């Protein structure tokens, strides 16, 4: 997943990662070391890659000015229209689970040029026909200020591309070893897939070496628990 994300990041871009996002953070560190040395990284929690001293407020003000090329979010629920939910599961006032992700995403998903969702659990409880709560809508009507939005969804099985004109997720590639039938059986909305579906290119030896070496080491300085779990 980290490699699939890293390959979407380009040299010279401004790329920000919020909290609890070790996989996108790995992708950024990998891209920076490999093909995007001029990328400007803003990694929440990192000392080396947080260029602000005015708190999250200063980052937020920077972001809402449209300065982020790429931003990341997860998604407790994601539907085929590109809506995602990071707020509550169930009824808003009597939820079965209350989630912490609504704070930023109802705003940053309007201003970051390319929002990439990552989710390590590709299942029907995540990829649902309709989200319980729209934390961020895939599309918005005319007259609403929106200079960015959903770009792609990267899971442990596949990559979806968001087609803004059609307002829906389209299956882009499936990861090596994963079948279309498997993605279909674990997705709660109808797939729009090209035929045949291309495979996500495998990570190269160089990418894996960087990930398992210097990227892992640097990630450990601000995601120590995540790095511990990976060993």
């Amino acid at each position, binding site marked *: 997943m980290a490699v699939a994300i890293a390959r979407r990041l380009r040299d010279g871009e401004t790329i920000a990662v919020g909290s609890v996002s070790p996989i996108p953070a790995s992708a950024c560190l990998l891209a920076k070391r490999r093909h995007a040395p001029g990328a400007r990284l803003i990694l929440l929690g990192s000392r080396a890659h947080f260029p602000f001293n005015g*708190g*999250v407020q200063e980052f937020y003000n920077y972001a*809402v000015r449209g300065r982020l090329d790429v931003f990341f979010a997860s998604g407790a629920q994601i539907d085929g229209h590109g809506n995602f939910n990071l*707020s509550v599961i169930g009824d*808003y006032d009597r939820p079965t689970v209350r989630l912490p992700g609504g704070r930023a995403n109802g*705003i940053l998903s309007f201003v970051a040029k390319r929002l990439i969702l990552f989710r390590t659990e590709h299942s029907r409880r995540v990829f649902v026909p309709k989200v319980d709560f729209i934390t961020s809508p895939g599309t918005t*009507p005319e007259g609403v*200020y929106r200079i960015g939005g959903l770009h792609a969804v990267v899971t442990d099985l596949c990559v979806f591309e968001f087609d803004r004109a059609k307002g829906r997720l389209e299956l882009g590639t499936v990861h090596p070893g994963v079948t279309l039938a498997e993605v279909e059986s674990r997705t709660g909305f109808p797939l729009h897939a090209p035929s045949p579906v291309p495979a996500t290119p495998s990570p190269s030896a160089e990418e894996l070496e960087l990930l398992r070496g210097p990227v892992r080491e640097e990630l450990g300085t601000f995601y*120590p628990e995540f790095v*511990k779990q990976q060993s």
Partner: protein
Amino acid sequence: MNVPFVPVRGLLGTDYMKVRPDFRVLANPYDQREDIALVPAIAPDLAVFHGLRGDRHGNVITSGVLDAKLIAQASRRAVATVEEVSDGDLTREAHTGVLVPGIHVSAVVHAPHGAHPTAFEGRYPMDGEHVREYVNAAGSDATFAAWLDRYVYGVPDHAAYLERVRLAAPAAR
């Protein structure tokens, strides 16, 4: 700022606009083609934040990744807990964090390891074991009550808390 609301770009099309009747929509008075969300100001009675050093004038140096200065300015009163108390005047000291001027601060409390079990940048990492214990305890009312008894109601003061979580008791200053 003392304004009753601020316009916010974003939010429109999210379900926050449905569950928060206090979030409104207005046509931008300077560009009628744009709809914009309005959200009410939050004016807390009290802010509490943690800092690295505090002095007798209420000046506090804290981490630049926190919004301590913002919440101190937004609130009627602000209390800072700090790792160290300084005898000097922190407005005259070089530092790499953010200085929250004493005029915004009502009280400074000496509380070493005060951010536990979360991390405090540059000082100590998150106590992962304790956070896991908390997450497990939060799964039911009974286990959470037991957690509160052990770490909140069952400790008479901060020093006793630090002993309970197996951190060194604070040195007398």
